[in-house]
């Protein structure tokens, strides 16, 4: 536990260092407007990342959640624009689509036994295919995108008087809730158990199928919440909305301490990971850099961060393993003396 905490402090420290570096070098970085904007940018990816964290902890992955977000957004747009449906009906429909999407992933992984990576990659094709099929068509049959003007949708893009966006509130609320879910509920412990050691979890009577389904449905739900705020912000859904966002979300989760082998990481780590990525992305825009240097810098900082983290971890492990041996020896001595 102590080592986990240490890792947490390190990743938090790296984030703080990055914030400090940008604050010192750019007058625009540490301004309230930028902070709110930054948080807003982080929030949609962050909401997706929360869902992905659940699936990664079960030892899986969800490459489809970005496409699912896009599908939800498209469903809402189409219902509002083409069918002129009531906004709440549209939102309910999107929720249903999301949950079905999560169940579909769960079905592929838990029932058909397809490995998570291939299963969600395929369902990414399926969801993005559905998005294309749902897309709004112009009179000549060409796919087009339309801006929505519905006040409810606009509300989702709104903010509090002092500048904090609703989406950020939703993000943090969801983060706190899911952290609680992971750490303090039966389902949460089962999620870790399935990811960490599936066999023993099943021997303890935990259902692999139920836990997997729960994780994917959570991920689907996060995609749904994300899609609402995505629409609030962009007010239009295009055929590629959300696609590719999953990679950012996965990166955030992994930076935050999730391991693909499962059983590790939590939502707090993922939130730090998201903020790290977005602070970097946001900060890099503040310098007068050419686009290629922006890319090089962003990538390099991530690589340096990874290497630093790994090297430090290696060092700590070497250190703690030695102290563990000493502690064990003491214990043996005690047992021997009895």
């Amino acid at each position, binding site marked *: 536990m102590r080592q986990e905490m240490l890792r947490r402090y390190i990743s938090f420290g790296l984030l703080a260092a990055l914030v400090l570096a940008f604050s010192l070098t750019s007058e625009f970085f540490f301004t309230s407007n930028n902070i709110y904007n930054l948080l807003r940018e982080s929030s949609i990816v962050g909401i997706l990342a929360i869902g992905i964290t659940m699936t990664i902890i079960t030892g899986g992955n969800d490459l489809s959640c970005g496409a699912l977000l896009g599908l939800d957004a498209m469903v809402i747009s189409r219902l509002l624009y083409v069918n002129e449906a009531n906004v709440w009906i549209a939102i309910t429909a999107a929720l249903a689509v999301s949950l079905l999407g999560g169940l579909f992933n769960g079905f*592929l992984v838990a029932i*058909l*036994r*397809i*490995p*998570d*990576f*291939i*299963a969600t*990659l*395929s*369902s*990414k*094709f*399926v*969801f*993005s*295919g*559905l998005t*294309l*099929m749902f*897309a709004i068509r112009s009179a000549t049959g060409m*796919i087009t995108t339309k801006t929505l003007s519905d006040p409810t949708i606009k509300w989702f893009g709104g903010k509090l008087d002092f500048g904090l966006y609703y989406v950020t509130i939703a993000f943090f609320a969801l983060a706190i809730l899911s952290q609680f879910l992971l750490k303090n509920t039966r389902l949460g412990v089962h999620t870790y158990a399935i990811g960490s050691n*599936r066999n023993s979890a099943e021997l303890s009577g935990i259902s692999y199928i139920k836990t997997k389904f729960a994780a994917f449905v959570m991920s689907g739900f996060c995609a749904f919440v994300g899609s609402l705020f995505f629409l609030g912000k962009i007010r239009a859904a295009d055929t590629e909305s959300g696609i590719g966002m999953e*990679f950012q979300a*996965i*990166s955030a989760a*992994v*930076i935050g301490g999730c*391991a*693909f082998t499962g059983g590790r990481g939590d939502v707090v780590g993922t939130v730090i990971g998201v903020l790290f990525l977005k602070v970097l992305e946001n900060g890099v825009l503040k310098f007068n850099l050419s*686009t*290629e*240097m*922006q*890319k*090089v810098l*962003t*990538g*390099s900082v*991530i*690589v340096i961060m*990874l*290497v630093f*983290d*790994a*090297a430090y*971890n*290696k060092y700590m492990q070497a250190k703690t393993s030695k102290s563990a041996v000493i502690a064990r020896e003491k214990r043996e001595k005690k047992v021997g003396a009895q």
Partner: protein
Amino acid sequence: MKGKNLSVAQLLYKYRQLLILAALCIFFAAALPGMFFTMSNFRSILYSMSLYGLMICGATFPVLLGGIDRTVGAVAALSGAICCMIIVNSGYTNQGVVLGILAGVGVGMLSGIIHGVIVAHFDIPAFLLTLATSQVIYGLVQVTTGKELIVVMKPALFTDIGAKRILEIPVPVYVLLICFIVAYFLLNHSTYGRRIYSVGGNREASKLSGINVKRTTITAYMMSGMMAAIAGIVLSSMNQQALSYAADGYENDVLAAIVVGGVSLRGGAGTLQGAIFGSLLIGMLNNGLRLMGVESIYHNFIKGIIIIAAVAADMYSSYQMSGLKHRGGKKHPHKQAAGENQ
């Protein structure tokens, strides 16, 4: 029990990927009489999958080690750019072409070595590392090309790589064939391949058996970089240009083909021919759907469903076959991978 007298079920299982391809072929051949099942169409399928195939021949190595290389697209763009720059600067001479190809491949290998060193020395998730570095490499491509579109329409030595046909077969297909044979040979008949499977199967045991795990890892990424670089050169020759965002997103298709082909992302299980099967499956679907005149917007959906069906059939047969293990019969390593991946 000797490995030779396999039952019908085991034979079917062994060649299940070919069976899936055959089923798809029969379907398309029936739906598209006189169009799908022709020499020229197979030529075009092979031609359009040759780039992916080339990348797969390399990217399978790190996946077999339990790693992943998402930089293949970026490396292809970089090697193409460097190759084209050298050809342009040499005044479109044949020596320039040779030099350009060597430099392009060299840069690819260098990039692979760098990734290999980082992955081998630090316990970094390769997925994230290569995601970040591919951004860096694309940035470098833009620096290299100065964001210009570099057009190379001569000499013939260069443009022939992508366009010429020898005995009615396009050159990229030959390049793919050669690279496939090299990679296949390395993986199946060389001590290096044995080491790859061993390290992917159990890193610690391999280390204790005297395998230099770091060197194996570095060379695996080097192979990946090299093949991606060759693909990049073929790509730039096909298009007669170096584009700074060339092959963007190819890594996703390449990895999809590899996993669809049954290579376990945990390493140690799966075959190169399986991975090539994956890309043939996807290539054939693209081709068949287009020939059937299915509107583009339905392609993704249909592809997703068919991949699910193919993989589910694979999983189901593995599951059924696992009942045979108590007979001590010959087992395909992939089946285990399926089980392990649950």
